[in-house]
Protein backbone atom coordinates (compact mmCIF):
# COMPACT_ATOMS: atom_id res chain seq x y z
CA UNK A 1 0.00 0.00 0.00
CA UNK A 2 1.43 3.33 -0.96
CA UNK A 3 1.94 5.97 1.63
CA UNK A 4 -0.26 8.49 -0.10
CA UNK A 5 -3.29 6.36 0.63
CA UNK A 6 -2.25 5.43 4.12
CA UNK A 7 -5.18 5.16 6.37
CA UNK A 8 -4.73 7.43 9.31
CA UNK A 9 -5.73 5.89 12.59
CA UNK A 10 -7.80 8.91 13.49
CA UNK A 11 -10.24 7.72 10.92
CA UNK A 12 -10.87 4.54 12.78
CA UNK A 13 -11.46 6.40 15.94
CA UNK A 14 -13.97 8.60 14.25
CA UNK A 15 -15.74 5.87 12.39
CA UNK A 16 -15.28 2.92 14.69
CA UNK A 17 -14.97 3.66 18.34
CA UNK A 18 -16.22 7.09 19.06
CA UNK A 19 -14.36 7.96 22.21
CA UNK A 20 -10.78 6.81 21.73
CA UNK A 21 -8.60 9.49 23.27
CA UNK A 22 -6.09 11.19 21.09
CA UNK A 23 -3.20 10.04 23.25
CA UNK A 24 -3.96 6.49 22.25
CA UNK A 25 -4.16 7.51 18.63
CA UNK A 26 -0.68 8.90 18.92
CA UNK A 27 0.67 5.73 20.41
CA UNK A 28 -0.98 3.66 17.73
CA UNK A 29 0.40 5.60 14.82
CA UNK A 30 3.93 4.19 14.84
CA UNK A 31 2.61 0.70 15.55
CA UNK A 32 0.51 0.80 12.44
CA UNK A 33 3.36 2.13 10.34
CA UNK A 34 5.53 -0.70 11.51
CA UNK A 35 2.93 -3.30 10.78
CA UNK A 36 2.47 -1.91 7.32
CA UNK A 37 6.07 -2.52 6.53
CA UNK A 38 5.91 -6.11 7.64
CA UNK A 39 2.61 -7.09 6.11
CA UNK A 40 1.52 -6.11 2.66
CA UNK A 41 -2.14 -6.97 3.18
CA UNK A 42 -2.32 -4.29 5.79
CA UNK A 43 -5.90 -3.08 5.56
CA UNK A 44 -6.98 -5.96 7.70
CA UNK A 45 -3.93 -5.83 9.92
CA UNK A 46 -4.47 -2.15 10.64
CA UNK A 47 -7.99 -2.81 11.80
CA UNK A 48 -6.72 -5.55 14.07
CA UNK A 49 -4.06 -3.41 15.65
CA UNK A 50 -6.61 -0.71 16.38
CA UNK A 51 -8.90 -3.32 17.84
CA UNK A 52 -6.19 -4.62 20.14
CA UNK A 53 -5.61 -1.10 21.33
CA UNK A 54 -9.30 -0.65 22.07
CA UNK A 55 -9.35 -3.95 23.94
CA UNK A 56 -6.47 -2.82 26.15
CA UNK A 57 -8.33 0.37 26.83
CA UNK A 58 -11.51 -1.51 27.75
CA UNK A 59 -9.62 -3.81 30.07
CA UNK A 60 -8.15 -0.78 31.73
CA UNK A 61 -11.51 0.91 32.18
CA UNK A 62 -13.28 -2.18 33.48
CA UNK A 63 -10.44 -2.96 35.89
CA UNK A 64 -10.78 0.44 37.43
CA UNK A 65 -14.56 0.26 37.64
CA UNK A 66 -14.98 -3.27 38.97
CA UNK A 67 -12.80 -5.13 41.46
CA UNK A 68 -14.08 -8.46 40.11
CA UNK A 69 -12.99 -7.82 36.57
CA UNK A 70 -9.27 -8.41 36.55
CA UNK A 71 -9.35 -11.87 38.09
CA UNK A 72 -8.31 -15.23 36.71
CA UNK A 73 -11.77 -16.60 37.29
CA UNK A 74 -13.42 -13.83 35.36
CA UNK A 75 -11.12 -14.24 32.39
CA UNK A 76 -11.79 -17.96 32.48
CA UNK A 77 -15.48 -17.13 32.27
CA UNK A 78 -14.86 -14.97 29.25
CA UNK A 79 -12.86 -17.72 27.57
CA UNK A 80 -15.59 -20.23 28.39
CA UNK A 81 -18.13 -18.02 26.67
CA UNK A 82 -16.10 -17.66 23.50
CA UNK A 83 -15.94 -20.99 21.61
CA UNK A 84 -19.51 -21.27 20.26
CA UNK A 85 -19.65 -17.70 19.04
CA UNK A 86 -16.06 -18.01 17.88
CA UNK A 87 -16.75 -21.00 15.67
CA UNK A 88 -19.76 -19.26 14.16
CA UNK A 89 -17.78 -16.13 13.59
CA UNK A 90 -14.88 -17.89 11.89
CA UNK A 91 -17.26 -19.64 9.49
CA UNK A 92 -19.19 -16.44 9.01
CA UNK A 93 -16.06 -14.51 8.11
CA UNK A 94 -15.25 -17.02 5.38
CA UNK A 95 -18.77 -16.78 3.99
CA UNK A 96 -18.58 -12.99 4.22
CA UNK A 97 -15.32 -12.95 2.33
CA UNK A 98 -17.14 -14.55 -0.61
CA UNK A 99 -19.47 -11.57 -0.46
CA UNK A 100 -22.17 -13.63 1.25
CA UNK A 101 -23.75 -13.76 4.68
CA UNK A 102 -25.62 -16.37 6.69
CA UNK A 103 -28.40 -15.13 8.91
CA UNK A 104 -29.61 -18.67 9.52
CA UNK A 105 -26.47 -19.84 11.34
CA UNK A 106 -28.02 -19.41 14.79
CA UNK A 107 -31.12 -21.39 13.85
CA UNK A 108 -28.97 -24.10 12.30
CA UNK A 109 -27.12 -24.21 15.61
CA UNK A 110 -30.50 -24.75 17.27
CA UNK A 111 -31.47 -27.60 14.99
CA UNK A 112 -28.10 -29.29 15.44
CA UNK A 113 -28.20 -28.76 19.20
CA UNK A 114 -31.59 -30.38 19.47
CA UNK A 115 -30.57 -33.36 17.38
CA UNK A 116 -27.42 -33.78 19.47
CA UNK A 117 -29.51 -33.51 22.64
CA UNK A 118 -32.08 -36.03 21.43
CA UNK A 119 -29.34 -38.42 20.53
CA UNK A 120 -27.84 -38.09 24.03
CA UNK A 121 -31.22 -38.67 25.63
CA UNK A 122 -31.63 -41.80 23.53
CA UNK A 123 -28.39 -43.04 24.98
CA UNK A 124 -26.50 -43.19 21.68
CA UNK A 125 -22.74 -43.73 21.97
CA UNK A 126 -20.95 -40.45 22.69
CA UNK A 127 -19.19 -40.32 19.34
CA UNK A 128 -22.51 -40.64 17.52
CA UNK A 129 -23.99 -37.73 19.47
CA UNK A 130 -20.85 -35.70 18.88
CA UNK A 131 -20.85 -36.34 15.13
CA UNK A 132 -24.51 -35.51 14.70
CA UNK A 133 -23.70 -31.84 15.34
CA UNK A 134 -21.28 -31.19 12.47
CA UNK A 135 -23.18 -33.49 10.13
CA UNK A 136 -26.47 -31.68 10.68
CA UNK A 137 -24.76 -28.32 10.41
CA UNK A 138 -22.93 -29.38 7.26
CA UNK A 139 -26.14 -30.47 5.58
CA UNK A 140 -28.00 -27.28 6.47
CA UNK A 141 -25.06 -25.15 5.35
CA UNK A 142 -24.80 -27.03 2.07
CA UNK A 143 -28.47 -26.39 1.37
CA UNK A 144 -27.90 -22.64 1.78
CA UNK A 145 -24.77 -22.78 -0.34
CA UNK A 146 -26.46 -24.64 -3.18
CA UNK A 147 -29.37 -22.21 -3.31
CA UNK A 148 -26.98 -19.25 -3.28
CA UNK A 149 -24.51 -20.64 -5.80
CA UNK A 150 -26.72 -22.51 -8.24
CA UNK A 151 -29.92 -20.50 -8.16
CA UNK A 152 -28.26 -17.14 -7.84
CA UNK A 153 -30.51 -15.87 -5.05
CA UNK A 154 -29.12 -13.13 -2.81
CA UNK A 155 -27.48 -14.73 0.25
CA UNK A 156 -29.30 -12.48 2.68
CA UNK A 157 -32.67 -13.53 1.26
CA UNK A 158 -31.81 -17.22 1.13
CA UNK A 159 -30.50 -17.37 4.66
CA UNK A 160 -33.22 -15.16 6.13
CA UNK A 161 -35.72 -17.61 4.69
CA UNK A 162 -33.64 -20.50 5.93
CA UNK A 163 -33.61 -19.03 9.43
CA UNK A 164 -37.40 -19.17 9.61
CA UNK A 165 -37.45 -22.65 8.16
CA UNK A 166 -34.86 -23.95 10.64
CA UNK A 167 -36.72 -22.27 13.50
CA UNK A 168 -39.87 -24.05 12.37
CA UNK A 169 -37.93 -27.31 12.30
CA UNK A 170 -36.84 -26.68 15.88
CA UNK A 171 -40.45 -26.20 16.85
CA UNK A 172 -41.45 -29.40 15.10
CA UNK A 173 -38.67 -31.28 16.88
CA UNK A 174 -39.35 -30.17 20.45
CA UNK A 175 -42.75 -28.51 20.41
CA UNK A 176 -42.92 -25.64 22.85
CA UNK A 177 -40.79 -27.53 25.35
CA UNK A 178 -37.19 -27.77 26.41
CA UNK A 179 -34.75 -30.57 26.15
CA UNK A 180 -33.35 -30.87 29.63
CA UNK A 181 -31.63 -33.20 32.02
CA UNK A 182 -29.16 -34.43 29.45
CA UNK A 183 -26.49 -36.86 30.70
CA UNK A 184 -23.10 -35.55 31.73
CA UNK A 185 -21.40 -37.50 28.96
CA UNK A 186 -19.28 -34.63 27.69
CA UNK A 187 -18.42 -33.03 31.01
CA UNK A 188 -14.80 -34.22 30.95
CA UNK A 189 -14.41 -32.56 27.57
CA UNK A 190 -16.22 -29.30 28.06
CA UNK A 191 -15.68 -28.62 31.74
CA UNK A 192 -12.00 -29.38 32.12
CA UNK A 193 -9.28 -26.78 32.18
CA UNK A 194 -5.75 -27.30 30.91
CA UNK A 195 -3.29 -24.86 32.45
CA UNK A 196 -6.29 -22.80 33.48
CA UNK A 197 -7.67 -22.66 29.97
CA UNK A 198 -11.01 -24.34 29.22
CA UNK A 199 -10.67 -27.21 26.75
CA UNK A 200 -13.42 -25.95 24.40
CA UNK A 201 -11.46 -22.74 24.02
CA UNK A 202 -8.31 -24.66 23.10
CA UNK A 203 -10.39 -26.67 20.68
CA UNK A 204 -11.72 -23.48 19.13
CA UNK A 205 -8.22 -22.02 18.80
CA UNK A 206 -6.93 -25.18 17.11
CA UNK A 207 -9.79 -25.19 14.62
CA UNK A 208 -9.31 -21.50 13.90
CA UNK A 209 -5.61 -21.96 13.37
CA UNK A 210 -6.13 -24.82 10.93
CA UNK A 211 -8.65 -22.75 9.04
CA UNK A 212 -6.30 -19.79 8.99
CA UNK A 213 -3.71 -22.12 7.50
CA UNK A 214 -6.18 -23.43 4.92
CA UNK A 215 -7.13 -19.89 4.12
CA UNK A 216 -3.64 -18.44 3.75
CA UNK A 217 -1.75 -21.37 2.32
CA UNK A 218 -4.05 -23.16 -0.08
CA UNK A 219 -5.81 -22.06 -3.27
CA UNK A 220 -9.10 -22.19 -1.36
CA UNK A 221 -8.32 -18.87 0.34
CA UNK A 222 -7.51 -17.12 -2.92
CA UNK A 223 -10.67 -18.46 -4.49
CA UNK A 224 -12.82 -17.27 -1.59
CA UNK A 225 -11.34 -13.79 -1.80
CA UNK A 226 -11.60 -13.68 -5.58
CA UNK A 227 -15.28 -14.59 -5.45
CA UNK A 228 -15.81 -11.80 -2.95
CA UNK A 229 -14.04 -9.37 -5.24
CA UNK A 230 -16.11 -10.36 -8.23
CA UNK A 231 -17.69 -13.72 -8.76
CA UNK A 232 -17.85 -13.18 -12.50
CA UNK A 233 -14.16 -12.32 -12.75
CA UNK A 234 -13.25 -15.27 -10.59
CA UNK A 235 -15.15 -17.56 -12.91
CA UNK A 236 -13.46 -16.13 -15.98
CA UNK A 237 -10.11 -16.66 -14.29
CA UNK A 238 -10.90 -20.35 -13.95
CA UNK A 239 -12.16 -20.57 -10.38
CA UNK A 240 -14.93 -23.10 -9.83
CA UNK A 241 -16.99 -20.42 -8.18
CA UNK A 242 -20.09 -22.45 -7.44
CA UNK A 243 -18.24 -25.27 -5.84
CA UNK A 244 -16.16 -22.93 -3.69
CA UNK A 245 -19.24 -20.98 -2.61
CA UNK A 246 -21.05 -24.12 -1.55
CA UNK A 247 -17.87 -25.15 0.24
CA UNK A 248 -17.83 -21.91 2.23
CA UNK A 249 -21.44 -22.29 3.41
CA UNK A 250 -20.94 -25.98 4.15
CA UNK A 251 -17.83 -25.19 6.18
CA UNK A 252 -19.75 -22.63 8.18
CA UNK A 253 -22.42 -25.27 8.72
CA UNK A 254 -19.92 -27.77 10.06
CA UNK A 255 -18.51 -25.17 12.45
CA UNK A 256 -22.03 -24.29 13.56
CA UNK A 257 -22.58 -28.00 14.22
CA UNK A 258 -19.45 -28.24 16.34
CA UNK A 259 -20.60 -25.17 18.24
CA UNK A 260 -23.96 -26.86 18.81
CA UNK A 261 -22.22 -29.88 20.23
CA UNK A 262 -20.13 -27.75 22.59
CA UNK A 263 -23.23 -25.84 23.63
CA UNK A 264 -25.21 -28.95 24.47
CA UNK A 265 -22.28 -30.54 26.27
CA UNK A 266 -21.88 -27.47 28.40
CA UNK A 267 -25.46 -26.49 29.19
CA UNK A 268 -27.09 -29.94 29.15
CA UNK A 269 -30.37 -28.42 28.08
CA UNK A 270 -31.66 -26.85 24.88
CA UNK A 271 -34.53 -24.42 24.73
CA UNK A 272 -36.39 -23.37 21.63
CA UNK A 273 -34.82 -19.96 21.47
CA UNK A 274 -31.30 -21.36 21.74
CA UNK A 275 -28.61 -19.08 20.31
CA UNK A 276 -31.02 -16.42 19.13
CA UNK A 277 -29.15 -13.30 18.12
CA UNK A 278 -25.93 -15.21 17.66
CA UNK A 279 -25.74 -14.80 13.87
CA UNK A 280 -25.60 -11.07 14.30
CA UNK A 281 -23.00 -11.35 17.03
CA UNK A 282 -20.95 -13.57 14.74
CA UNK A 283 -21.22 -11.05 11.91
CA UNK A 284 -20.22 -8.30 14.31
CA UNK A 285 -17.22 -10.27 15.54
CA UNK A 286 -16.11 -10.97 11.98
CA UNK A 287 -16.42 -7.32 10.95
CA UNK A 288 -14.72 -6.11 14.10
CA UNK A 289 -11.96 -8.62 13.45
CA UNK A 290 -11.27 -7.12 10.04
CA UNK A 291 -13.54 -8.91 7.57
CA UNK A 292 -15.19 -6.58 5.11
CA UNK A 293 -18.96 -6.58 4.98
CA UNK A 294 -18.56 -6.12 1.22
CA UNK A 295 -16.52 -9.27 0.85
CA UNK A 296 -13.19 -9.77 -0.86
CA UNK A 297 -10.98 -9.21 2.15
CA UNK A 298 -10.79 -10.27 5.72
CA UNK A 299 -9.21 -12.50 8.25
CA UNK A 300 -10.00 -15.76 9.94
CA UNK A 301 -7.76 -15.27 12.92
CA UNK A 302 -9.14 -11.77 13.45
CA UNK A 303 -12.40 -13.35 14.56
CA UNK A 304 -10.70 -14.54 17.72
CA UNK A 305 -9.98 -10.95 18.64
CA UNK A 306 -13.44 -9.85 17.52
CA UNK A 307 -15.15 -12.48 19.65
CA UNK A 308 -12.94 -11.75 22.62
CA UNK A 309 -13.84 -8.10 22.30
CA UNK A 310 -17.57 -8.77 22.25
CA UNK A 311 -17.50 -11.18 25.15
CA UNK A 312 -15.23 -8.87 27.13
CA UNK A 313 -17.59 -5.99 26.62
CA UNK A 314 -20.62 -8.03 27.63
CA UNK A 315 -18.79 -9.35 30.65
CA UNK A 316 -17.79 -5.89 31.72
CA UNK A 317 -21.31 -4.55 31.35
CA UNK A 318 -22.62 -7.38 33.54
CA UNK A 319 -20.02 -6.73 36.21
CA UNK A 320 -20.89 -3.06 36.23
CA UNK A 321 -24.49 -4.08 36.91
CA UNK A 322 -25.81 -2.57 33.73
CA UNK A 323 -29.16 -4.16 32.77
CA UNK A 324 -28.81 -6.66 29.96
CA UNK A 325 -31.08 -4.69 27.66
CA UNK A 326 -28.14 -2.31 27.25
CA UNK A 327 -26.17 -5.26 25.95
CA UNK A 328 -28.29 -5.22 22.84
CA UNK A 329 -27.94 -1.50 22.46
CA UNK A 330 -24.17 -1.67 22.77
CA UNK A 331 -23.89 -4.66 20.45
CA UNK A 332 -26.21 -3.13 17.88
CA UNK A 333 -24.33 0.14 18.01
CA UNK A 334 -21.09 -1.73 17.70
CA UNK A 335 -22.20 -3.59 14.59
CA UNK A 336 -23.34 -0.41 12.93
CA UNK A 337 -20.16 1.38 13.93
CA UNK A 338 -17.96 -1.44 12.67
CA UNK A 339 -19.74 -1.64 9.34
CA UNK A 340 -19.80 2.12 8.93
CA UNK A 341 -16.11 2.44 9.63
CA UNK A 342 -15.46 -0.29 7.09
CA UNK A 343 -17.52 1.50 4.45
CA UNK A 344 -16.24 4.98 5.30
CA UNK A 345 -12.71 3.75 5.15
CA UNK A 346 -13.31 2.31 1.67
CA UNK A 347 -14.82 5.51 0.41
CA UNK A 348 -11.90 7.54 1.64
CA UNK A 349 -9.41 5.20 0.10
CA UNK A 350 -10.85 5.22 -3.39
Amino acid at each position, binding site marked *: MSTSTTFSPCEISRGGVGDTPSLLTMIRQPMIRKLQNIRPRSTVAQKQVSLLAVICLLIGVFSVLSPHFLTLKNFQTILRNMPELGLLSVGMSIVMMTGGIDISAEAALGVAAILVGKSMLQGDPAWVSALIGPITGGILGTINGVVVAYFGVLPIIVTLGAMYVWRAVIFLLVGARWLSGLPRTFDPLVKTFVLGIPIPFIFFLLITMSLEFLFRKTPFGWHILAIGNSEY*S*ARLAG*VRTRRVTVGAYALLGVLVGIAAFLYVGKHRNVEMTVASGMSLEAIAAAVIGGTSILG*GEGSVIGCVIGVFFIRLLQNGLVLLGIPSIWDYLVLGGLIIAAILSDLLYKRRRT
Partner: protein
Amino acid sequence: MKKISKAFGGVIALRDVDFRLFEGEVVGLVGDNGAGKSTLIKILSGVYIPDKGDIYIGGERVEFRSPLDAWKYGIATVYQELALADKMNVVENIFLGHELVKNVLGLRILDKRRMRQRAGELLKQLLIELKSLDVPVSKLSGGQRQGIAICRALNLEARVICMDEPTASMAVGESERILDFVRRLREQGKAVIFISHNLEHVFRVVDRLVVLRHGRVVGEGYVEDLDKDTVVKLITGVLENLNLLGEEVREGTTGDLLDRNGSKKVRR
Protein backbone atom coordinates in the same frame (compact mmCIF):
# COMPACT_ATOMS: atom_id res chain seq x y z
CA MET B 1 -16.74 -22.74 -34.84
CA LYS B 2 -19.71 -23.46 -37.03
CA LYS B 3 -23.01 -21.68 -37.32
CA ILE B 4 -22.74 -20.10 -33.90
CA SER B 5 -25.77 -18.15 -32.72
CA LYS B 6 -26.32 -16.44 -29.42
CA ALA B 7 -29.03 -14.14 -28.14
CA PHE B 8 -29.29 -12.27 -24.84
CA GLY B 9 -32.99 -11.90 -24.20
CA GLY B 10 -34.21 -10.14 -27.29
CA VAL B 11 -30.79 -8.98 -28.45
CA ILE B 12 -29.31 -11.26 -31.03
CA ALA B 13 -25.57 -10.98 -30.52
CA LEU B 14 -24.46 -13.55 -33.09
CA ARG B 15 -26.23 -15.18 -36.02
CA ASP B 16 -24.84 -18.23 -37.79
CA VAL B 17 -21.24 -17.20 -37.41
CA ASP B 18 -18.59 -19.48 -38.90
CA PHE B 19 -15.13 -18.89 -37.60
CA ARG B 20 -11.89 -20.78 -38.18
CA LEU B 21 -8.48 -20.49 -36.68
CA PHE B 22 -5.29 -22.31 -37.56
CA GLU B 23 -2.09 -22.89 -35.68
CA GLY B 24 0.53 -20.24 -36.13
CA GLU B 25 -2.01 -17.75 -37.34
CA VAL B 26 -3.14 -14.40 -36.00
CA VAL B 27 -6.70 -13.56 -36.89
CA GLY B 28 -8.06 -10.09 -36.39
CA LEU B 29 -11.66 -9.76 -35.32
CA VAL B 30 -13.04 -6.32 -35.98
CA GLY B 31 -16.43 -4.68 -35.96
CA ASP B 32 -18.42 -1.86 -34.53
CA ASN B 33 -19.33 -1.58 -30.85
CA GLY B 34 -21.83 -4.29 -30.11
CA ALA B 35 -21.01 -6.23 -33.26
CA GLY B 36 -20.58 -9.39 -31.23
CA LYS B 37 -16.80 -9.76 -31.08
CA SER B 38 -16.56 -10.25 -27.33
CA THR B 39 -19.52 -12.57 -27.37
CA LEU B 40 -17.88 -14.75 -29.99
CA ILE B 41 -14.66 -15.20 -28.08
CA LYS B 42 -16.53 -15.69 -24.82
CA ILE B 43 -18.29 -18.60 -26.45
CA LEU B 44 -14.95 -19.95 -27.54
CA SER B 45 -13.65 -19.49 -23.96
CA GLY B 46 -16.57 -21.24 -22.31
CA VAL B 47 -18.02 -18.14 -20.65
CA TYR B 48 -21.25 -18.33 -22.65
CA ILE B 49 -22.86 -21.42 -24.05
CA PRO B 50 -24.07 -20.82 -27.62
CA ASP B 51 -27.77 -21.14 -28.40
CA LYS B 52 -26.94 -22.88 -31.64
CA GLY B 53 -23.83 -24.06 -33.39
CA ASP B 54 -20.84 -26.21 -32.54
CA ILE B 55 -17.19 -25.85 -31.75
CA TYR B 56 -14.65 -28.22 -33.25
CA ILE B 57 -11.03 -28.62 -32.30
CA GLY B 58 -8.89 -30.62 -34.68
CA GLY B 59 -12.06 -32.20 -36.02
CA GLU B 60 -13.40 -33.17 -32.62
CA ARG B 61 -16.64 -31.61 -31.50
CA VAL B 62 -16.27 -30.04 -28.05
CA GLU B 63 -18.59 -28.43 -25.55
CA PHE B 64 -17.38 -25.89 -23.06
CA ARG B 65 -19.44 -25.21 -19.99
CA SER B 66 -16.93 -23.04 -18.17
CA PRO B 67 -13.69 -21.17 -18.86
CA LEU B 68 -11.96 -24.03 -17.12
CA ASP B 69 -13.26 -26.48 -19.76
CA ALA B 70 -11.92 -24.28 -22.54
CA TRP B 71 -8.57 -24.05 -20.80
CA LYS B 72 -8.35 -27.84 -20.76
CA TYR B 73 -8.42 -27.65 -24.55
CA GLY B 74 -5.65 -25.09 -24.54
CA ILE B 75 -7.67 -21.92 -24.90
CA ALA B 76 -6.73 -18.86 -22.86
CA THR B 77 -8.33 -15.46 -23.02
CA VAL B 78 -7.56 -11.85 -22.17
CA TYR B 79 -11.02 -10.49 -21.54
CA GLN B 80 -12.06 -7.00 -22.47
CA GLU B 81 -13.13 -6.43 -18.86
CA LEU B 82 -9.83 -8.00 -17.71
CA ALA B 83 -11.54 -10.07 -15.02
CA LEU B 84 -9.11 -9.07 -12.28
CA ALA B 85 -9.80 -9.32 -8.56
CA ASP B 86 -9.28 -5.70 -7.54
CA LYS B 87 -8.30 -6.13 -3.91
CA MET B 88 -5.90 -8.95 -4.61
CA ASN B 89 -2.29 -8.40 -5.53
CA VAL B 90 -0.42 -8.86 -8.79
CA VAL B 91 0.83 -12.39 -8.15
CA GLU B 92 -2.53 -13.57 -6.89
CA ASN B 93 -4.23 -12.17 -9.94
CA ILE B 94 -1.86 -13.73 -12.43
CA PHE B 95 -2.22 -17.20 -10.94
CA LEU B 96 -5.83 -17.08 -9.81
CA GLY B 97 -7.60 -20.29 -10.73
CA HIS B 98 -4.33 -21.87 -11.86
CA GLU B 99 -2.17 -21.61 -8.78
CA LEU B 100 1.18 -23.30 -8.56
CA VAL B 101 1.09 -25.68 -5.67
CA LYS B 102 3.40 -28.04 -3.91
CA ASN B 103 2.23 -31.20 -2.31
CA VAL B 104 2.77 -31.31 1.43
CA LEU B 105 1.36 -34.37 3.15
CA GLY B 106 -1.35 -34.67 0.53
CA LEU B 107 -2.34 -31.01 0.90
CA ARG B 108 -2.09 -28.64 -2.04
CA ILE B 109 -0.08 -25.80 -0.59
CA LEU B 110 0.41 -22.58 -2.53
CA ASP B 111 3.93 -22.27 -3.80
CA LYS B 112 4.15 -18.54 -3.33
CA ARG B 113 7.85 -18.31 -3.95
CA ARG B 114 7.67 -20.01 -7.33
CA MET B 115 4.64 -17.96 -8.32
CA ARG B 116 6.42 -14.73 -7.45
CA GLN B 117 9.39 -15.73 -9.47
CA ARG B 118 7.33 -16.77 -12.47
CA ALA B 119 5.19 -13.63 -12.23
CA GLY B 120 8.39 -11.61 -12.39
CA GLU B 121 9.49 -13.50 -15.49
CA LEU B 122 6.16 -13.04 -17.24
CA LEU B 123 6.07 -9.32 -16.51
CA LYS B 124 9.62 -9.01 -17.74
CA GLN B 125 8.80 -10.81 -20.96
CA LEU B 126 6.23 -8.14 -21.67
CA LEU B 127 8.57 -5.48 -20.28
CA ILE B 128 5.90 -4.36 -17.87
CA GLU B 129 7.37 -2.43 -15.02
CA LEU B 130 5.78 -2.54 -11.61
CA LYS B 131 7.11 -1.10 -8.38
CA SER B 132 5.85 -3.99 -6.36
CA LEU B 133 4.09 -7.29 -6.83
CA ASP B 134 2.26 -6.82 -3.53
CA VAL B 135 0.00 -3.92 -4.44
CA PRO B 136 -3.69 -4.60 -4.97
CA VAL B 137 -4.30 -4.34 -8.70
CA SER B 138 -6.91 -1.64 -8.15
CA LYS B 139 -3.98 0.68 -7.45
CA LEU B 140 -2.41 0.13 -10.87
CA SER B 141 -2.89 2.05 -14.08
CA GLY B 142 -5.17 0.83 -16.85
CA GLY B 143 -2.24 -0.26 -18.97
CA GLN B 144 -0.59 -2.11 -16.10
CA ARG B 145 -3.82 -3.90 -15.32
CA GLN B 146 -4.11 -4.93 -18.92
CA GLY B 147 -0.56 -6.22 -18.77
CA ILE B 148 -1.46 -8.36 -15.78
CA ALA B 149 -4.48 -9.78 -17.58
CA ILE B 150 -2.20 -10.66 -20.49
CA CYS B 151 0.32 -12.29 -18.15
CA ARG B 152 -2.48 -14.37 -16.70
CA ALA B 153 -3.39 -15.69 -20.13
CA LEU B 154 0.24 -16.30 -21.09
CA ASN B 155 0.88 -18.23 -17.93
CA LEU B 156 -1.62 -20.82 -19.10
CA GLU B 157 0.65 -21.71 -22.04
CA ALA B 158 -2.35 -22.20 -24.23
CA ARG B 159 -2.42 -23.14 -27.91
CA VAL B 160 -5.07 -20.59 -28.64
CA ILE B 161 -4.96 -17.13 -27.14
CA CYS B 162 -7.89 -14.77 -27.48
CA MET B 163 -7.14 -11.12 -26.85
CA ASP B 164 -10.07 -8.79 -26.53
CA GLU B 165 -8.73 -5.27 -27.03
CA PRO B 166 -5.47 -6.01 -25.23
CA THR B 167 -4.00 -2.62 -26.06
CA ALA B 168 -7.07 -0.48 -25.42
CA SER B 169 -5.64 1.48 -22.52
CA MET B 170 -1.96 1.15 -23.25
CA ALA B 171 0.48 3.83 -24.23
CA VAL B 172 2.26 3.71 -27.59
CA GLY B 173 5.37 1.99 -26.29
CA GLU B 174 3.50 -0.58 -24.32
CA SER B 175 1.16 -1.52 -27.13
CA GLU B 176 4.15 -1.92 -29.45
CA ARG B 177 5.49 -4.52 -27.07
CA ILE B 178 2.20 -6.33 -27.03
CA LEU B 179 2.15 -6.38 -30.82
CA ASP B 180 5.70 -7.73 -30.86
CA PHE B 181 4.62 -10.30 -28.42
CA VAL B 182 1.69 -11.41 -30.52
CA ARG B 183 4.10 -11.93 -33.42
CA ARG B 184 6.30 -14.01 -31.18
CA LEU B 185 3.34 -16.14 -30.19
CA ARG B 186 2.69 -16.78 -33.87
CA GLU B 187 6.30 -17.85 -34.35
CA GLN B 188 5.81 -20.33 -31.52
CA GLY B 189 3.00 -21.84 -33.56
CA LYS B 190 0.19 -20.54 -31.40
CA ALA B 191 -3.10 -19.33 -32.71
CA VAL B 192 -4.15 -15.84 -31.71
CA ILE B 193 -7.46 -14.03 -32.03
CA PHE B 194 -6.78 -10.32 -31.87
CA ILE B 195 -9.65 -7.93 -31.29
CA SER B 196 -9.03 -4.23 -31.57
CA HIS B 197 -10.65 -1.02 -32.70
CA ASN B 198 -7.24 0.23 -33.71
CA LEU B 199 -7.09 -0.87 -37.33
CA GLU B 200 -3.49 0.19 -37.63
CA HIS B 201 -2.52 -2.28 -34.90
CA VAL B 202 -4.70 -4.91 -36.47
CA PHE B 203 -3.13 -4.52 -39.90
CA ARG B 204 0.36 -4.69 -38.49
CA VAL B 205 -0.05 -7.88 -36.62
CA VAL B 206 -2.70 -10.13 -38.12
CA ASP B 207 -2.57 -12.58 -41.02
CA ARG B 208 -6.26 -12.72 -41.65
CA LEU B 209 -9.20 -10.51 -40.83
CA VAL B 210 -12.80 -11.26 -39.98
CA VAL B 211 -15.30 -8.42 -39.90
CA LEU B 212 -18.44 -8.73 -37.80
CA ARG B 213 -21.46 -6.51 -38.19
CA HIS B 214 -24.69 -6.90 -36.24
CA GLY B 215 -23.69 -10.40 -35.25
CA ARG B 216 -22.88 -11.64 -38.76
CA VAL B 217 -19.62 -12.18 -40.55
CA VAL B 218 -19.67 -9.59 -43.32
CA GLY B 219 -16.12 -9.81 -44.49
CA GLU B 220 -13.13 -12.11 -44.43
CA GLY B 221 -9.79 -12.00 -46.11
CA TYR B 222 -6.01 -11.96 -45.79
CA VAL B 223 -4.52 -8.64 -44.90
CA GLU B 224 -2.58 -8.52 -48.15
CA ASP B 225 -5.84 -8.48 -50.03
CA LEU B 226 -7.49 -5.88 -47.86
CA ASP B 227 -6.91 -2.23 -47.09
CA LYS B 228 -8.10 -0.12 -44.22
CA ASP B 229 -10.65 1.70 -46.32
CA THR B 230 -12.38 -1.48 -47.35
CA VAL B 231 -12.42 -2.75 -43.79
CA VAL B 232 -13.89 0.51 -42.50
CA LYS B 233 -16.57 0.28 -45.16
CA LEU B 234 -17.35 -3.27 -44.05
CA ILE B 235 -17.47 -2.30 -40.40
CA THR B 236 -19.80 0.60 -41.02
CA GLY B 237 -21.95 -1.24 -43.52
CA VAL B 238 -21.14 0.87 -46.55
CA LEU B 239 -19.87 -2.30 -48.16
CA GLU B 240 -22.26 -5.11 -47.45
CA ASN B 241 -20.32 -8.27 -47.93
CA LEU B 242 -16.90 -9.31 -49.06
CA ASN B 243 -15.23 -12.64 -48.95
CA LEU B 244 -11.72 -12.79 -50.23
CA LEU B 245 -10.81 -16.16 -48.84
CA GLY B 246 -9.65 -18.70 -51.34
CA GLU B 247 -11.99 -21.61 -51.80
CA GLU B 248 -9.26 -24.01 -50.71
CA VAL B 249 -9.26 -22.65 -47.17
CA ARG B 250 -12.97 -22.59 -46.82
CA GLU B 251 -13.58 -26.02 -48.28
CA GLY B 252 -10.55 -27.78 -46.92
CA THR B 253 -11.16 -27.22 -43.28
CA THR B 254 -14.78 -28.10 -42.67
CA GLY B 255 -14.95 -25.86 -39.68
CA ASP B 256 -12.07 -27.27 -37.71
CA LEU B 257 -10.66 -24.83 -35.27
CA LEU B 258 -7.14 -26.08 -35.17
CA ASP B 259 -5.67 -28.25 -37.82
CA ARG B 260 -2.07 -28.85 -38.72
CA ASN B 261 -2.87 -29.32 -42.39
CA GLY B 262 -4.92 -26.22 -42.40
CA SER B 263 -2.10 -24.11 -41.14
CA LYS B 264 -0.07 -24.84 -44.27
CA LYS B 265 -2.67 -23.09 -46.27
CA VAL B 266 -2.12 -19.89 -44.44
CA ARG B 267 -0.28 -17.56 -46.69
CA ARG B 268 2.45 -15.38 -45.36
